[in-house]
């Protein structure tokens, strides 16, 4: 698997910008980032981006929340294999558990630092997403 696209489902503009920064190291290697503002938006975007290789999913969103989105994705034969990382905020551990039971591959708790997400992705996808040289991370950060 080669990570072609990462779909970020998140309702905060600020977080989207932060993900852009955090994913800088992967973008340098050709990975594209697709942004969705809530679960419904994400479901609409998925068919347009069949080459999505990772979904980063916020749980707490207006309209369609993360858990419902996850359930719907897992019912779609075309998309149910896409690995999902759920992102929750401190104090919502029960949501994390529900997400993991629904088939999420990993979770992250806000606040997190860029390296927390990098470490998690490295753990989940050992060979594919790690940049060739560690130095590219700095460049990515200031991009």
């Amino acid at each position, binding site marked *: 698997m080669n990570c072609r696209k990462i779909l970020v489902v998140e309702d905060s503009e600020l977080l989207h910008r932060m993900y852009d920064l955090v994913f800088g190291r992967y973008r340098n290697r050709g990975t594209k980032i697709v942004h969705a503002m809530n679960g419904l938006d994400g479901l609409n975007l998925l068919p347009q981006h069949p080459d999505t290789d990772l979904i980063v999913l916020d749980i*707490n969103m207006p309209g369609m929340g993360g858990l419902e989105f996850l359930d719907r994705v897992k019912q779609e034969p075309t998309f149910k294999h896409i690995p999902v990382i759920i992102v929750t905020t401190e104090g919502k551990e029960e949501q994390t558990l529900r997400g993991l039971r629904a088939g999420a591959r990993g979770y992250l708790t*806000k606040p997190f630092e860029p390296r927390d997400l990098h470490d998690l992705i490295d753990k989940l996808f050992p060979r594919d997403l790690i940049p060739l040289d560690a130095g590219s991370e700095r460049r990515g950060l200031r991009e």
Partner: protein
Amino acid sequence: MPYEEFLADFLLESRERLDRLEDILLALGETAPERRRSALDEACRELHTLKGNSGMMGFKDLQGLAHSMEDTVHALDAKAPQVGPLLEGLDEFRRLLGLRSAPAPPSREADGAVAPAAEESFQGSVRVAFSALDGLMDHLAEMVIFRNRLADTVQRACSQGAQRQGWEEVQLAQEVLGKTLGLIQEGVMRLRVVPLRSLFGRMKRIAHDEAVKEGKGVRFEATGGETPMDKALLEVASAALGHIVRNAVVHGIEPPEVRLSRGKSKTGRIKLTASLLSNEVSVEVVDDGAGIDRRALEREATERGIDCSRIDDLNSLVFHPGFSTRKNADMSAGRGMGLSSALEAVRRICGHVEVSSEPGMGTLFRLRLPLSVSIVRALLVRADGEEYALPVSAVVESRKLQPGDGHVVNGAGVLPWRDDLVPLLDLGYASRTSRGRRESGYVIIIEADGKHRGLVADGITGLREIVVKKLDPILGSWEGLSGSTILGDGRAVLILDPKGLTSVPPFVAGTA
């Protein structure tokens, strides 16, 4: 902090979320009980996101505050939600955000990408420091003054017979310069404009807080949020409207039991309507309360030695300093000072306030504000060798005055005008430069607050764009003046205040 460069984004998004949260909380009382739960869920979601984002930014205090507010929302009783503590938390959150708005220390990164310090909470897409625009306006105002000076010089030179070709070119150049300046002026004015909506939240909050304090039920509605307004004027309007809304809750809306006994709904209504007229912005505040008690006003006026027979509109007494029909002054409305000083500020920027009231039905306050603040078109008028600037917005018409045109009624000079009699006010007499009224010259009909006056002067000397400068209070004040300006030739000229002029008694010594 790994996400330092996002400070400005964080501040902006947080303020938007806080505004939404405030909206939800303030609307909760009017939300149907079965929909309250979902409104509260939404409030929780906003707080939860605020908490997460604050955490990401490394702001532990904000994170903690959002967390405890979230707990408070969870504990709210959907049947009778008490939002007071949450609103306080919201204010605290805003205050803490304000502390973070201080300019960030310079980044040590080589590319110098410093997070821009977020300025005041602008809605929409204007992200320029207001102070920068203000500075630009000041320079522009100076340019207008010097352009006027240039125009005067050129005109003088031409009239003195300087026919050489050089002057024609100077004339042409200054005309083009004038047009370009006009365009720049318009452009900068447009940059300073923000939608009035940014003020609605504050008004809604004032209505809510006062209603809670007074133990009254108030529903606040606002329309016309897209109405544009100069940011500087918005501040003045905000202060005045704040007082008017407060006044409407405290004095206008009756306590629930009184309303019920009068056959009204238990909850009072305050409606704010903003609209853009041709050359000004109108903001109306209507309440369905008790209306102004004219008899109480009259009583109080008599006690203070004010002669009510001289006042055409008794309602306007509410604008007098220290005037209040409420016996026990408290912290908010009831001191009578706030409203009059806020309205004074409105007048200073050439705005007007009107009030009309129907006993038992309610009161209407109408605020009329100019579109832009510091440059106005003015007619230059002369009396006894003194020149004055009169804002064109108040001028209805002007004409020559011949001896015998006017006559005297009840001691005041009047002029037949449009099937009516308009009181004449001699500019020289009113400003104490002459002892009697002149019989000939020019009469300029002005209008303010629906009242007309015929201003009598020796002549009309020009039409200019003038830059309004406030008068130093040390000079004392005369109600007929609103400020001063500097003309192209460097002379300082006083600016007349149409509203003040229409309230000057038109009586002339020796004619009564």
